[in-house]
């Protein structure tokens, strides 16, 4: 396969309503059925989906996909004016597929065919005409284009038929039939009129995989919460987190759970802390601006030792910032954003699978450590789709972290008993013999307000101690690349890990001694492992999407050395190429 490493990148671009996103969904499904791995990340420049340009971007590969890649091998235009703006993001030998028979002449430079350069291959296909032939309207131009793609890249038409059947399963049988016709017309047009570029041939066999889910990071996180036994969700809509609430609103009531859409984020977390206090598995999800509003109540959960899960789907900030652009700039907010010494556990998944597994695990951790667990996702991770084998859901091993339940005895119950581990056995309201008080005020072990300095010191230490202990129970950070001395050590977190990994394995860096360190537990960071990693690396480069280098700052604090910050805010996922260049600079 061409392009970056071994993959094919297809972009389908149109205006809202042209069906570019649903075409990409069908393409994803078909490719997954054929046994390919996919990563799909759509973009909507408008603040709200459904207006203006929309671009479906999918990377198809025989091996697991780490990043969506930048330059597309193929651009499908369902709207030339929008697609022309994507021309800077395609390879010099890209395939461009466009409507050769639009209804009217367009003004100069409004037709993508006018921009096809030597080296590229243009396929003019009468998308509208063929769609009209199939469904009596231009609505299925996207499906005609898919049929053409299947022919151009020699993909299994059966897999596309199956994907269409899945996509339209809830529609009338005629809708499915018509779309199948549209697909075939597009396919046959290429077979009859076009030569396939032999350079790219997916040589797909008849499809075999059936147990694949294609889900987004948000859906995976929501499903992880459901499978963890979520009982209560409260939230206030915000891009890019809203999908989590939408997903749960559909599914949680069926599992005897409750979803509440509150009037704002302060109320949402208030509800969640209340449910956590009652011993329920409770969660909210938001983005940076909403998370800011939640911090005060989050502190209450820290002080009152209530386990809850909060997902922050980060976007460009500060303030309303860049609602539909990805960024990893809430790390400091998640780790340090509270009054007083307010330790909390912060996790960050690297991919869609981990959105599922880490969210599911987060509930155990929150309950066992009686503290808020914050999961840092971001726009890119929330909205990207990946193929997940069904086994991910079944093979999850629950019960790694378990809560210590209080047992009623003769002595009065001390809800906040000082222990070596820092964890006090927990009880919930209504449990006989375990009545207790909780408050946001500093308190004695029995929960009563206590402002004594000595008590405060012991309580602060206990809360920090219990959280620090997770470092020893949590799996070691993932390390890749050179196992011994390395000229460059790459550290990254969250959704940037994929790009960092791809950079380390990039052919331009083959032969160099490079190592990677990729924690999922960001706070408390596993400092022992980090120091060891640091000791074996001549230079440390921290890759993240924020301008100050927030993780870099944390690493410097722990390792007491200067690191190279590859901290950027390009408003899109990090570019493998720029990481590679940076590493090359260090190696020189």
């Amino acid at each position: 396969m061409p392009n970056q490493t071994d993959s094919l990148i297809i972009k389908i671009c149109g205006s809202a309503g042209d069906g570019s996103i649903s075409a990409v969904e069908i393409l994803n499904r078909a490719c997954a059925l054929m046994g390919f791995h996919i990563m799909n990340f759509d973009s909507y420049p408008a603040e709200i989906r459904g207006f203006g340009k929309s671009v479906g971007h999918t990377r198809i590969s025989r091996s697991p996909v780490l990043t969506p890649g930048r330059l597309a091998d193929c651009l499908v235009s369902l709207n030339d004016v929008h697609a022309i703006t994507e021309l800077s993001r395609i390879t010099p030998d890209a395939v461009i597929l466009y409507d050769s028979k639009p209804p009217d002449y367009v003004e100069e430079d409004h037709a993508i065919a006018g921009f096809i350069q030597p080296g590229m291959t243009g396929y003019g296909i009468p998308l509208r005409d063929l769609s009209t032939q199939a469904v009596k309207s231009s609505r299925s131009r996207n499906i005609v284009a898919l049929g053409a793609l299947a022919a151009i890249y020699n993909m299994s038409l059966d897999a596309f038929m199956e994907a269409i059947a899945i996509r339209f399963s809830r529609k009338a049988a005629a809708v499915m039939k018509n779309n199948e016709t549209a697909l075939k017309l597009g396919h046959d047009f290429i077979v009859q009129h076009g030569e396939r570029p032999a350079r790219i041939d997916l040589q797909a066999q008849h499809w075999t995989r059936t147990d694949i889910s294609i889900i987004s990071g948000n859906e995976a996180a929501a499903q992880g919460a459901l499978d963890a036994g979520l009982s209560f969700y409260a939230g206030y809509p915000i891009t890019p987190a809203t999908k989590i609430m939408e997903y749960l609103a559909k599914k949680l009531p069926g599992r005897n759970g409750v979803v509440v859409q509150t009037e704002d984020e302060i109320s949402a977390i208030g509800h969640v802390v209340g449910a956590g206090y009652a011993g329920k598995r409770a969660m909210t999800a938001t983005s940076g601006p909403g998370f800011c509003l939640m911090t005060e109540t989050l502190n209450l959960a820290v002080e009152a030792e209530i386990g809850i899960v909060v997902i922050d789907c980060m976007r460009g900030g500060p303030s309303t910032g860049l609602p539909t652009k990805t960024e990893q700039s809430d790390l400091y907010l998640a780790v340090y954003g509270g009054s007083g010494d307010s330790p909390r556990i912060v996790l960050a998944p690297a991919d869609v699978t981990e959105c599922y597994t880490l969210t599911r695990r987060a509930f155990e951790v929150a309950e066992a450590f009686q503290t808020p667990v914050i999961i840092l996702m971001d726009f890119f991770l929330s909205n990207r789709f990946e193929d997940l084998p069904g086994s991910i859901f079944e093979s999850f091993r629950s019960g790694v972290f378990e809560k210590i339940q209080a047992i009623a005895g003769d002595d009065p119950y001390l809800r906040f008993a000082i222990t070596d581990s820092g964890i006090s056995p927990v009880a919930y309201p209504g449990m006989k013999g375990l009545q207790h008080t909780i408050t946001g005020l500093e308190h004695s072990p029995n929960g009563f307000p206590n402002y004594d300095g000595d008590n405060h010191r012991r309580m602060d230490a206990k809360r920090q101690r219990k959280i620090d202990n997770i470092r020893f129970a949590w799996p070691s950070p993932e390390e890749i690349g050179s196992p011994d001395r390395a000229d460059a050590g790459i550290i990254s977190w969250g959704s940037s890990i994929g790009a960092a990994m791809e950079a380390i394995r990039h052919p331009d860096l083959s032969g160099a001694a490079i190592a990677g360190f990729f924690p999922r537990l960001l706070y408390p960071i596993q400092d022992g492992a980090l120091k060891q990693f640091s000791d074996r690396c001549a230079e440390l480069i921290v890759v993240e999407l924020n301008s100050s280098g927030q993780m870099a700052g944390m690493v410097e604090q722990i390792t007491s050395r200067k690191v190279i910050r590859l901290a950027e805010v390009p408003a899109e996922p990090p570019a493998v190429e720029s990481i590679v260049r940076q590493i090359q600079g260090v190696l020189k």
Partner: protein
Amino acid sequence: MKPPHIVIIGNGVSANRASEVLRENDPDVRITLISREFFLFYFRHKLPAFITGSIDEDSLIVHDLHFYMDRNIRLRLGQTVQKIDLENKTLFLSHMEMVHYDKLLICSGGQSHIPEIYYPFRSFFTTLKKLSDARDIRKKLPLINRIVIVGGDLTSLRLADALIRSGREVSFILDDFAFWPIESGPDIRHALETALKKVGATVISGDPLERIERISDGDPPEYAVYTRKGQQLRAQMVGAFFGFKPDVDFLIRSGLDIDRGILVDDRLQTTYPDVFAAGDCAQVYAPHLNNYWVSIGWKNAIMLGEIAAANMSGSEQPVSMPVEQRIRFSDLQLKTPWWHAL
């Protein structure tokens, strides 16, 4: 103010030379070249050598993309001008885009000429004008042993020579219509016959083509070629080589004056202001003859492109009639003002 937009239809030698001169004369003017061929500017006379595999595609290229980038010339390749609205100075491209111009230069070149009496067999004929034709022939060639060439223009001589050298059997049916643009009298035909035989071709002269039948649809297909006097030849490819004529069909209803080519005065201006034509597509007025001439040939196309560009930039240069040159093929010697030995 936006700089004026000069559009050139064509990306052949006259178009390229014109664009170069236009840019030298004015650094700011917007220049766009439009060509329906999806390939960079190339040497057409090298196509026979490409067909037989003695050179590759890269060695055909005259200008790579940098030529255009360096001169800030927009190159639109693979785009066909379907029609022109001369009143509104707008070109209509087949992919449904409009392009507006302030000045237009038409350098649409020539196309393979097939005499009308042979129209019924058009679909059987292979012609050679464009790189895509050459690619097609090159692809088919490994399966082809026998080729019949009807006509016999200057292009076919070079192609025949290359094909024979690569081990193919080539038969010519020399024709009265052949050899356009050169007037071919009996003595030229005789000299040509001798020259062709000398390079190893079988030649039928004075017995023109009567009909062609496709006798098998295999890959490659097999044709039976019959002459008027009843000779029958078998071939897997039948080439038609009757010279080139100006490629102006798309302009027929435009309002431009068209005869064989686009009629232009000796400044290369058409009957419409701001519209010029140069190269093989132009039919140029010669005041001293009070008549028009068409040139099919590389060097004259350069000269015409250059003069058209100068006049579009404000000069008043007249074109002078090209002078006769001597060209050779094997022992054959010809004199022509159009075609040059390249």
